[in-house]
């Protein structure tokens, strides 16, 4: 789950990282009021969960409160990469001297958190990594020990940060580690961390991703979820414990198991069709779960056919078939359904479904081709 800039910076502040004075506004007049309180120049920043806000005109400098109101009106009416701007952050403008990148993420291959820093801050770190990888300093952190003070000093030294800042930098690096660890983050990033003309270090912008699997111990973070980044169907699926991701195609896919679900999408594409979604109904296939999944798939108006692909292992195929029939009774879809059951008692299961006038298939390739044909028939 992604957090907004203002949410990330509030968390940073809790762990002793200096952030600019400022607040979030949902109306232009609020933005003006905040600018008045802050005095001087302010930055009006759109709060949407995509990169490239600056380039899209979603981050602008205001000279006075009237100007801030004017900019906020404009920015609050914007859509950036398809997402509506519902909030702006109004921050005091900083007098920037130098821009640094500082972040922590998971290094999957090393199985450790890695702190990354670069003197080339302010631009996306992926860009720095592509063009000048030597400018990124990486330090692995032992997850059982946490960040050591010497590691922070090494980083400060290696990015050629002036010695005057080492002490503050150490506190910030440590604060970032604590914020990362305490929130179960998978990414905690300050970009840029700036030095100012009056010799301070400030986290001007922040970004955090937190682990969806750890939400059980972070009810406060759960409330921060921004539902604009997912479709209504994706939100509904999450409630039922289903993994669902909407795509652009017209063949709805319902599959048990994530790997098999991805494979089903792939094979639809391989035979010239386009999957409408990824959906993993998990182990087994109770009528209840199948019905919920079917409703979610059919809520996408692009879906012209549904491909149901289940491997019956411990849950036998005839049981799965009965679940499907009960679900169909409840949902009554108007698009053709192609069903492939494989594994234990597959024949009995297929027979049950064929008797109910469903299109059945034995192989994955056969199922994909039948679903593609069915979707075309519906469209013509």
């Amino acid at each position, binding site marked *: 789950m992604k957090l907004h800039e203002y949410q990330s910076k509030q968390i940073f502040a809790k762990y002793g990282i200096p952030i600019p004075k400022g607040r979030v506004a949902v109306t232009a007049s609020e933005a003006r009021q905040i600018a008045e309180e802050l005095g001087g120049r302010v930055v009006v920043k759109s709060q949407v969960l995509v990169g490239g806000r600056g380039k899209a005109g979603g981050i602008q400098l205001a000279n006075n409160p009237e100007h801030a109101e004017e900019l906020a009106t404009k920015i609050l009416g914007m859509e950036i990469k398809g997402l509506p701007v519902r909030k702006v952050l109004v921050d005091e403008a900083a007098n920037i001297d130098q821009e640094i990148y500082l972040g922590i993420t998971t290094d999957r291959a090393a199985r450790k958190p890695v702190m990354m820093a670069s003197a080339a801050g302010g631009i996306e770190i992926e860009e720095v990594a592509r063009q000048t990888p030597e400018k990124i300093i990486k330090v692995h952190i032992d997850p059982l020990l946490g960040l050591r003070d010497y590691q922070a000093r090494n980083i400060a030294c290696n990015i050629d940060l002036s010695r005057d800042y080492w002490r503050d930098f150490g506190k910030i690096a440590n604060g970032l580690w604590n914020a990362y660890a305490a929130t179960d983050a998978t990414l905690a990033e300050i970009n840029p961390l700036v030095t100012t003309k009056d010799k301070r270090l400030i986290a001007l912008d922040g970004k955090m991703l937190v682990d969806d699997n750890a939400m059980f111990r972070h009810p406060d973070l759960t409330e921060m979820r921004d539902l604009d980044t997912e479709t209504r169907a994706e939100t509904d699926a999450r409630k039922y414990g289903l993994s669902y991701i909407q795509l652009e195609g017209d063949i709805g896919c319902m599959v048990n198991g994530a790997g098999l679900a991805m494979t089903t999408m792939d094979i639809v594409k391989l035979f010239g069709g386009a999957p409408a979604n990824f959906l993993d109904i998990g182990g087994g296939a109770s009528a209840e779960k199948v019905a919920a999944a079917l409703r979610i798939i059919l809520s996408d108006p692009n879906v012209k056919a549904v491909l149901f692909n289940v491997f019956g292992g411990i849950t036998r195929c005839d049981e799965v078939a009965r679940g499907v029939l009960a679900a169909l009774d409840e949902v009554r879809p108007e698009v053709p359904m192609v069903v492939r059951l494989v594994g*234990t008692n597959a024949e009995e299961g297929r027979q049950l479904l064929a008797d109910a006038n469903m299109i059945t298939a034995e192989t994955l390739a056969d199922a994909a081709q039948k679903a593609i044909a069915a979707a075309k028939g519906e469209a013509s």
Partner: protein
Amino acid sequence: MSILINKNTRLLVQGITGNEGLFHTSQMVEYGTNVVAGVTPGKGGEWVLGGKIPVFDTVSIAVQATEANASVLFVPARFTPDAIFEAADAGIPLIICITEGVPVQDMMRVRNYLDQKNIRLVGPNCPGLLTPGESKVGIIPGNIAIPGNIGVVSRSGTLTYEVLYALKLLGVGASTCVGIGGDPVNGTNFIDVLGMFENDPQTDKVVLIGEIGGTDEEKAAEFIETRMTKPVIAFIAGQTAPPGKRMGHAGAIIEGGSGTAADKIKALQAAGVKVARHPEEIPSLLS
């Protein structure tokens, strides 16, 4: 021969009295796995499966009483890290974690701790291990595979079952099937298992089932090219997955342009691995 488990495996089940734990224990026992004990804190002294398997309060007591040498976990995600630490501290050398949804920072702490103690973890978020005809640890349906000479290693569950079953229908069997799990940080990765298959006399060929996310398949490609003599056939799921979205498995996500199926397929092919376009092509590539 087989890898990781065999007839001599003395299995402990952590979380044995829960629904999943109890059901799969009965399946494992039915398959012939030697399940010697279960652990559920607070239920020590009880017996399950009609009085066949004793339940203990702690792993250390269970190990003292039964000499268990492997443990399988059916423990809810929030209690899983603690259960793994408990098994490790009780001296169990092989831990198989079925549980899905363990936070990744927990897994980094677990993995770094186990590495110091030289303990092997398989999973989490995996279907476990199956040595057809001998032993099954986890949730792989026993009836979908027959004994044979193909080693199978996979990041997925049901997709692996598909492959095992397709092989069985053709009369082809497996030496051992290892589900390594779909999480970004896990206990055992492809190269660990490939190395074991290379050294296992019963295994003649290997099927590797990968998916998007991370660089484990690329590492496997390098290992196959430099260290393996046995042929490897691969399939990679997620060729149509959009970037930035987590495809069910926590580890199946394309991040910052890396971890794509195309990159993995390219690396494997460059290492001489035949890559199937879809799983049903695997049996023909094996012959």
